[in-house]
């Protein structure tokens, strides 16, 4: 897009607006609570648009318009900058703007947590001048398009000038946003702003003061919303901070171990102090707030904390906190109470030379208390010699049982200097198993921990800076995108942080749209945000961006009709048909199949849908290739007719066979010219034609089988088809609704290699299983309306010396570092195993960059770039201190899934146990200076054995318990495909006591109070007959009612008089108007809102059938076939001390 941004520098442009400016100052941002709404990929937000209609001079205008000019990027940070600090789920922040701008929420940006999940209909989102859509690629007028694409320019060209290096120094105010540009001068200046104009401006946009005049401005004024006179008021206050922040920047290179002595900029203080230990721990902190507070273990903070600790022994603080955790524990816990009385001797007190001697001390730090755990990295950074970092505090697992933190475990913070850490990628998006990277492979081998990354690259983000630029600045050699961790040698040159070669700074990069200043490339948004999105110019496309294409392939055999899913599906699609992500080019199509394939001609002009039956399933062909996939807008009524009649059409069918393979082939043929998404609904084992499968499961062997067979696919038909799909940019999502064995191991390949997703609803039935029906409905709604990226590829680059070993997830690996993702969806996670090929000797930090290139549902090519920076260390103790136990568990789970398919399940189980043994043994031998009896682990790995045990008892890997093969395979698929946060819940469910919920420490989101009970260990001894307990296991939530549960809870929450009256198959809490009921429902609703899929709720009592599955999640207990936690620890200890 064309903007000679620097012109403003040249003084001509009066208020040349880099409208989106202020956002870049994180400090300032932090002060502005709250705007957590929608991200930016929204054209109307683009502040730059406002400028379009304001040509400085008629003569010049066209020049700006048509773009020949080297453009500076117009940076559109989407939502006003203020949203910066407010991570999505920020409970603390009410989100007023959300309400204010409902129509603003871009369809793609499902707000991550409690916000409305559904994308808004695109049409409302952007009310732009329709006249713009002259180009076929952009039928959607709302697209801010980049005029740079030649084919797109509707107007005659000034423009072949593609050379970027020749910046027009003219006074042109060409900050012209493409969309606006196309709209041309005919629009009043306010027009381009019109999307925003009718709506109240977000209250806390920092430039809101200047905004009102905006719309009313005469077309002659040059800038969007910054009045000429008023020019930079909003910016000014922030400028100093920015500078401050920047002044630290040079500290960039220095080793992570030195916290900036200067301390954080003054503004940090208010935020960091509250996180100090006493405050943070006094009340059980809400997990989210916690995470935020924790994210910035700032130097000051840690000093502070340290001081506290120094004062330690006599301070009531820590012990108090400690005790604070216990009241809910049943008495009789081995060594919990006694030791507490003794005053804690903090590690800091220990002599420097014996950092680890305090190991056996009975004093327990509050397990996982937010303070110390997060401080550790900065403590470590301060001085490893003088004190033991909290993460390395030695814990004897055999003595300390109560290790679970009261709230979900936060991700450890890499031990980087504060400046770097502030810029680093969010752990929700990009996380490493070792937050400190070992210098050599041999060191890594010694540590015996897996090195890998866990990514959630397309996560719905509440705020995401979007940059429109004609040239995307990348390293000339390794093609790395410029990122916050590059270093600027001087104003004209930057050094790539991945290959260490020096590049020139392009001319237009010199202009900083944020501060509207020239010559400060290091303050550009690209260099200030670790997660950023670029609108890609035409060099990034092989073909014009594809439209959104959705094809639904529905099983209509007798079995399928019996389950009654068709009704739900058709209804859901009818309800959401206008919120399918897409633009005016969106296409849909339907195929149904039993023993034959039925196509539906939905061509515009027909009075009703036409069904075409192809019975030759061996040699499938498309009866009318042109009219089967139709434009949704043009044929909407026909589609709706079809959806209304479809359930009745097959009501009486007696056809029991299923020719899934042929249907998939037909669907592939239909989609291959465009690419798109294929959603397959299947209810039984395909038994006809190509891809027919046989039942391989022997139900009697489920429990007794020594080793589980048939985890690998029976045929490569589905895999080959998936690869064909992948090459044609078609992704296949599989919905499996079946009571019988369906051979998911074979069927799943179709999604696995085409980057689709698998949904499995065992025993789905519209009457017998209402909980599944509800889950299916909710999942479908999310599925249909969530953001989607088409024809995507993801490349992961890393600093020279590191290399990618294996990928995990759903995709096809095209090259050693390139994943082909026909579709990418916001709920997909990936894992990557890394290896160290060359020593990272003289590096302080290494970086990883994941770049996801995709076509948005609006037909824009976009690149989302995440960059993660991690320190390099050369001692084992530092490696252990930086271990991220959850990420390690997640990665091990992925590796174990691979192992159980290629080798055997028992092999995989052994490998997991060995992983725990090896790493703890390595810790004991190499890090611990003093050997003691017991199972000694560093504090950061204290949950490792528990998680490993949980994995061994997970549905995917358990043995000895009757597990249906499909259930097991599905669990395996999920472990590989779910983002870490959700996978962890599957591995180690969360248990809460809910009969005594209080508002103490509750979160407050959207005027709702969400109680925050503490996490309990997964052991029956935590249950009591007097209580009610909620177990959150990812895709299912159990509410267990004790036999002697308080009648108060029964009546106020469940609405039944006594225990006996609790119905057997209750899956819904009645909406009672009592405080208890509201609290419980708010809590469950909050849990559900935190994930993109819908966990069904099962209320169970002692007699319920589901009690068994509830009890199987009691990981710490002994079962017939598996060790209890304590036994497992003993086993580990025995192996380690061998």
């Amino acid at each position, binding site marked *: 897009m064309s903007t000679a941004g620097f012109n403003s520098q040249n003084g001509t442009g009066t208020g040349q607006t880099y409208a989106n400016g202020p956002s870049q100052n994180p400090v300032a941002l932090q002060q502005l609570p709250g705007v957590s709404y929608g991200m930016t990929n929204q054209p109307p937000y683009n502040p730059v648009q406002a400028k379009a209609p304001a040509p400085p001079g008629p003569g010049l205008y066209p020049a700006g318009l048509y773009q020949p000019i080297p453009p500076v990027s117009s940076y559109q940070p989407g939502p006003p900058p203020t949203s910066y600090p407010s991570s999505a789920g920020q409970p603390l922040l009410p989100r007023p703007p959300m309400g204010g701008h409902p129509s603003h929420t871009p369809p793609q940006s499902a707000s991550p947590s409690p916000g409305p999940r559904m994308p808004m209909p695109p049409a409302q989102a952007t009310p732009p001048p329709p006249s713009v859509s002259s180009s076929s690629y952009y039928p959607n007028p709302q697209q801010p398009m980049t005029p740079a694409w030649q084919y797109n320019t509707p107007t005659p060209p000034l423009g072949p000038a593609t050379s970027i290096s020749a910046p027009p120094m003219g006074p042109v105010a060409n900050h012209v946003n493409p969309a606006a540009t196309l709209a041309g001068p005919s629009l009043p200046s306010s027009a381009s702003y019109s999307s925003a104009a009718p709506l109240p401006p977000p209250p806390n946009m920092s430039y809101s003061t200047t905004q009102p005049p905006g719309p009313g401005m005469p077309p002659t004024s040059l800038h969007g919303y910054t009045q000429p006179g008023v020019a930079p008021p909003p910016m000014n206050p922030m400028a100093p901070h920015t500078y401050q922040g920047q002044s630290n920047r040079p500290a960039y290179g220095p080793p992570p171990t030195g916290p900036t002595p200067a301390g954080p900029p003054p503004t940090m203080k208010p935020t960091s102090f509250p996180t100090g230990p006493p405050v943070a721990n006094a009340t059980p902190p809400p997990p989210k707030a916690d995470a935020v507070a924790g994210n910035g273990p700032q130097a000051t903070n840690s000093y502070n904390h340290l001081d506290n600790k120094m004062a330690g022994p006599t301070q009531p603080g820590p012990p108090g906190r400690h005790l604070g955790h216990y009241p809910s524990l049943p008495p009789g816990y081995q060594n919990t109470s006694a030791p507490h009385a003794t005053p804690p001797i903090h590690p800091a007190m220990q002599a420097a030379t014996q950092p680890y001697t305090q190991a056996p001390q009975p004093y327990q730090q509050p397990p996982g208390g937010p303070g110390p755990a997060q401080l550790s990295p900065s403590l470590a950074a301060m001085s490893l010699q003088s004190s033991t970092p909290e993460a390395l505090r030695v814990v004897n697992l055999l003595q300390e049982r109560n290790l679970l933190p009261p709230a979900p475990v936060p991700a450890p913070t890499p031990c980087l200097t504060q400046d770097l850490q502030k810029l680093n990628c969010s752990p929700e998006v990009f996380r490493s198993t070792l937050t400190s990277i070992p210098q050599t492979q041999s060191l890594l081998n010694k540590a015996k921990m897996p090195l890998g990354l866990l990514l959630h690259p397309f996560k719905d983000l509440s705020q995401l800076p979007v940059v429109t630029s004609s040239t*995307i600045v*990348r390293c000339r*050699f*390794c*093609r790395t995108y410029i990122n916050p961790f590059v270093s600027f040698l001087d104003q004209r040159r930057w050094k790539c942080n991945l290959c260490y070669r020096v590049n020139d700074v392009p001319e237009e990069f010199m202009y900083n749209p944020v501060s509207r200043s020239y010559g400060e490339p290091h303050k550009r948004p690209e260099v200030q945000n670790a997660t950023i999105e670029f609108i*890609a110019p035409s*060099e*990034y*496309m*092989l073909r014009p961006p594809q439209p959104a294409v959705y094809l639904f392939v529905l099983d209509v055999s007798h079995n399928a009709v019996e389950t009654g899913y068709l009704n739900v599906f058709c209804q859901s699609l009818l309800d959401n048909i206008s919120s399918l992500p897409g633009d005016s080019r969106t296409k849909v199509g339907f195929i149904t199949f039993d023993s034959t394939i039925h196509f539906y001609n939905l061509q515009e002009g027909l009075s009703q849908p036409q069904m075409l039956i192809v019975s030759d399933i061996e040699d499938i062909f498309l009866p009318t290739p042109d009219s089967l996939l139709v434009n949704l807008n043009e044929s909407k009524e026909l589609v709706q007719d079809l959806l209304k009649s479809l359930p009745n059409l097959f009501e009486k069918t007696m056809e029991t066979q299923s020719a899934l393979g042929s249907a998939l082939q037909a669907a592939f043929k239909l989609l291959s010219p465009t690419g798109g998404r294929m959603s397959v609904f299947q209810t039984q084992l395909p038994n006809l034609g190509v891809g027919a499968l046989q039942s391989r499961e022997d139900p009697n062997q489920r429990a007794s089988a020594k080793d589980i067979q048939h985890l*690998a*696919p*029976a*045929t*490569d*038909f589905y*895999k*080959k088809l998936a*690869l064909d799909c992948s090459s044609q940019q078609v992704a296949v999502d599989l919905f499996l609704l079946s009571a019988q064995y369906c051979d998911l191991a074979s069927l799943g390949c179709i999604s696995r*290699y085409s980057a689709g997703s698998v949904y499995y609803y065992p025993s789905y039935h519209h009457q017998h299983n209402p909980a599944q029906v509800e889950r299916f409905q909710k999942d479908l709604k999310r599925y249909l309306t969530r953001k989607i990226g088409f*024809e995507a*590829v993801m*490349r992961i680059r890393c600093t020279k010396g590191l*290399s*990618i*070993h*294996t*990928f995990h997830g759903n995709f*096809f*690996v*095209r*090259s*050693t*570092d*390139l994943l082909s993702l026909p579709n990418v969806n916001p709920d997909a996670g990936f894992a990557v*195993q890394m*290896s160290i090929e060359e020593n990272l000797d003289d590096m302080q930090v290494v970086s990883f960059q994941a770049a996801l*290139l995709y076509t948005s549902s609006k037909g824009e090519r976009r690149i989302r770039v995440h960059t993660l920076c991690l320190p390099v260390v050369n001692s084992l103790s530092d490696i252990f201190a930086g271990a991220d136990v959850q990420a390690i568990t997640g990665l091990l789970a992925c590796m174990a899934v691979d192992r159980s398919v290629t080798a055997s399940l028992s092999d995989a189980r052994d490998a997991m146990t060995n992983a725990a043994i090896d790493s703890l043994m390595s810790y004991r031998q190499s890090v611990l200076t003093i050997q003691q009896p017991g199972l000694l682990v560093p504090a950061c790995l204290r949950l490792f054995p528990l998680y490993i045990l949980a994995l061994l008892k997970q549905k995917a890997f358990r043995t000895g318990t009757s597990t249906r093969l499909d259930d097991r395979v599905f669990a395996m698929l999920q472990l590989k495909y779910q983002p870490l946060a959700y996978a962890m819940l599957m591995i180690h469910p969360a248990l809460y006591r809910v009969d005594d919920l209080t508002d103490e420490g509750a979160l407050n989101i959207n005027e709702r109070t969400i109680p925050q009970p503490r996490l309990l260990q997964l052991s029956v001894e935590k249950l009591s007959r007097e209580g009610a307990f909620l177990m959150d296991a990812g895709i299912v939530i159990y509410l267990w009612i004790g036999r002697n549960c308080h009648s108060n809870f029964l009546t106020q929450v469940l609405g039944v008089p006594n225990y006996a009256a609790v119905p057997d198959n209750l899956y819904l809490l009645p909406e009672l108007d009592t405080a208890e009921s509201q609290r419980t429902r708010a809590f469950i609703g909050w849990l559900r809102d935190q994930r993109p899929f819908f966990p069904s709720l099962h209320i169970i009592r002692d007699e319920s059938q589901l009690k068994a599955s509830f009890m199987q999640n009691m990981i710490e207990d002994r079962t017939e076939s598996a060790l209890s936690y304590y036994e497992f620890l003993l086993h580990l200890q025995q192996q380690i001390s061998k």
Partner: protein
Amino acid sequence: MAFTFAAFCYMLALLLTAALIFFAIWHIIAFDELKTDYKNPIDQCNTLNPTVEKVKKIKRVKIALKLVLPEYLIHFFFCVMFFCAAEWLTLCLNLPLLAYHVWRYMSRPVMSCPGLYDPTTIMNADILAYCQKEGWCKLAFYLLSFFYYLYGYVEAVSSDRRAAQHGSV
């Protein structure tokens, strides 16, 4: 008679081994290309664009991967020939490789068509490294056996000649 069956076998093996060496080199190149693909600075950002060069390369890689079965068959073929010619020592030297081939083909991933490499797992660093190593080892083996066959051929021919000379004398 100057040209025994054994000599013929050696000569055939010599020629075929030359072909196998060629296959092995192709194999090595193919895997190296797979591995170093990302280092190619030419394919810039547009990873989606299969430029002409890339297509060519992909084809070459594919061909190389298809050569697996012919390679195995050729090797099997001259093992049989040596068996018929009663060249026991030569056969013994080749048996381990033959066994390896059989094992390798038996343990290939589930596939409906002949082939050894699964495109979905080939990019795994372990498998890639294994295949590369396999390529180098085979190359070495074939090179050595090439010279051995050359020696064997000369030996067979000259021993014939000697025998013939002795006979004539």
